């Protein structure tokens, strides 16, 4: 594994390897000195073309706990906002000797471009690209689910998959990189996924995905579910006729207090409620649900650091790197489009 670009092409053995390594990394976080020397002298660049403080500081904490040098490169307020191309930015980072580039980009496929071209020869980690994928988010979600699922089974997490676990992912699947990465990874790990969404927020072609699709949240809960993952509703969808109003959305597809009570009445005492954050309380998730003992929201954040440590460690330790690519010249306009902030 040289890069982590997507979960679609992540093998079961590599997925388990990352999750198992993350368990070891989690143990470091419980120590008084939360630091390993593993990546001393290595440089990790957080290249963010889209604001995401949460993801950026999670990667920063992960890299620092492994003793790597961290450079944060935010597109805003940098040469990128003056029109520097991705190619020139990448070549600049290569010239500075970056060993890994953690890239967040509003354009789907931007991490693939970095990995496929000769602009830079660093390990590329996709920290969320457009509406495509967010593999470390899916890995931290799977890590959280695996701990829960193993605990219920009374067995250890290490080496385990998610066979038999029923997971509902609800909300704006069409524009969600989190949903995509989760569908592929959960498939690989053996979970049964149901997507719950208004038909307008499901992509054409979803019928080919390895999951079930439902338009009805209550039916999905009634069929039994072990984890419910609520997706954030983006502000810009609200006035684009994807649904009539935020209230109707909340009633039909939100995880509100009634549905929280329904889990109890349905006897689903071990079902967890997940959210990648940041949450729109009162829209896709009620405060009572977000703050309930079922909620794993903060555990997800905590596990995010462990999973990102594992990813950086596996991609950077012990590998020999080729010399950086030769620079060329190019310029193109950097324009910004839609953003997803989780």
């Amino acid at each position, binding site marked *: 594994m040289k890069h982590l670009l997507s979960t679609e092409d992540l093998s079961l053995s590599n997925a388990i390897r990352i999750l198992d390594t993350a368990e070891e990394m989690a143990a470091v976080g419980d120590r008084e000195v939360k630091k390993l020397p593993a990546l001393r002298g290595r440089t990790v660049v957080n290249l963010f073309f889209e604001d995401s403080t949460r993801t950026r500081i999670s990667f920063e904490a992960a890299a620092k706990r492994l003793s790597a040098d961290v450079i944060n490169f935010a597109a805003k307020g940098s040469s990128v906002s003056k029109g520097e191309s991705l190619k020139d930015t990448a070549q600049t980072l290569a010239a500075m000797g970056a060993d890994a580039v953690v890239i967040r980009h509003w354009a789907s*496929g931007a991490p693939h471009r970095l990995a496929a071209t000769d602009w830079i020869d660093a390990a590329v980690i996709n920290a969320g690209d457009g509406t*495509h994928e967010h593999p470390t988010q899916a890995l931290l979600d799977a890590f959280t689910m695996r701990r829960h699922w193993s605990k219920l089974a009374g067995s250890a997490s290490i080496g385990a998959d998610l066979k038999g676990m029923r997971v509902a992912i609800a909300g704006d699947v069409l524009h969600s990189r989190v949903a995509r990465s989760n569908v592929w990874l959960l498939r690989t790990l053996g979970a049964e996924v149901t997507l719950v969404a208004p038909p307008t927020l499901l992509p054409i072609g979803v019928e*080919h995905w390895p999951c079930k699709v439902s338009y009805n949240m209550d039916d999905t809960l009634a069929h039994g579910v072990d984890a419910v993952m609520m997706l954030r509703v983006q502000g810009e969808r609200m006035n684009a006729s994807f649904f009539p109003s935020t209230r109707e959305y909340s009633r039909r597809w939100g995880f509100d207090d009634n549905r929280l009570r329904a889990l109890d009445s349905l006897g689903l005492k071990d079902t967890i409620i997940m959210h990648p954050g940041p949450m729109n309380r009162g829209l896709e998730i009620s405060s009572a649900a977000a703050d309930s003992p079922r909620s794993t929201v903060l555990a997800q954040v905590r596990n995010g650091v462990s999973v990102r440590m594992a990813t950086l460690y596996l991609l950077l330790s012990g590998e020999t790197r080729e010399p950086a690519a030769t620079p060329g010249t190019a310029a193109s306009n950097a324009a910004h489009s839609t953003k997803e902030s989780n």
Partner: protein
Amino acid sequence: MAENNGTYLIRGASILGAGAEDLLISNGVIAARGAAAAAHKDAHGATVIEAAGLVALPGMVDVHTHLREPGREDAETVETGTRAAALGGFTAVHAMANSNPVADTAGVVEQVHSLGRAAGWVDVRPVGAVTVGLAGEQLAELGAMADSRAQVRMFSDDGLCVHDPVLMRRALEYVKAFDGVVAQHAQEPRLTAGAQMNEGAVSAVLGLTGWPAVAEESIIARDVLLAQHVNSRLHVCHVSTAGSVEIIRWAKERGINVTAEVTPHHLLLTDDLVRSYNPVYKVNPPLRTDADVQALRAGLADGTIDVVGTDHAPHPSEHKECEWAQAAMGMTGLETALSVVQHTMIETGLMTWADFSRVTSTAAAQIGRVTDQGRPLDAGEPANIILVDPAARWTVDPAKMATMGRNSPFAGLELPGQVVATFYKGHPTVLDGKLNTPYRESAAAAAGAS
């Protein structure tokens, strides 16, 4: 081969893929065909071209080329684009109007036309914009462009759709006054806001905004009905979906005066290639599915689709060396068109070389009203002829092309067929598969006088 008096004896070429015959080219026309060629008085002293194993075809006519000049001379010029055209086997190209300034006045179309004449590699036929500045709001002076020295007959806002139904109706009606045709870029703009690739199984996985087939098909359905209503002539640019083929087939059965074109890349490539996120595969309309490719091939073979148009769209490298969403749409095509059509249509048994000459030359010249092109290879006809080696195979290398654009989606692909010679108005612009010299009106006149 040295310059001579402009007389060429082509020996033993397979005419349109049929039996081997001789052709004598003299004074810009086919002086004789068959046994009469060698016996003709002008044959004495003619440059002999041994053409055994080669197929002789009428020079190809492209209904859809972007030459980028004026305005984007960093992408292509009339000179470089027409060199590419000659090497690709073309003797005429229709230069699309989306230059800068837009070709929406007699002045700009005359400029492009005269640049083409000065270059001398092919007949450059400017396409006039339908609306001022391609803005889709107000008709450009179509009559002035028709009456200009460029004699524009094809009008298009290509790159953008004439989406206002009233404006489209008026344009279709107005061009009847001078036997013009409106070439529509069928793309409903609201259904394709921010669209990046074909909407379907692949876009769902890649998270790229979908470009639904219905955005093309709904405009074509509307436009064929408008063309029927006002009894005018409609041409549909770069048809890309199976549904579009069905609608055009239906329209033709009803007697509606519609013609349609397909690009070589839509005959071969599918949206699976977008999985690489390599913008060399980004094009408008987008690459579709294999079912669409098969329907397009069938439509071209049965005549539903009349012509192949390259939609040759060169871009400077920085417009492709970037994120998919940032990249420009378009692919080069002039130097690969013949090979791709041979590969997809002839080697599959769907077409003969005679069919090839219809879809790349005869029908294209008729759509553009280019009267001296797309003609039979008979005595007395203008000598716009290409010689093709159908047995040749070559590997596409964009760096070796005459076009300035390096954005060929066929790079690295091995394809059949090579243009050995191109005769434009009786003058060899290409010989031995290499650029020769451009056609010069004065030189031809001098040769004619000798």
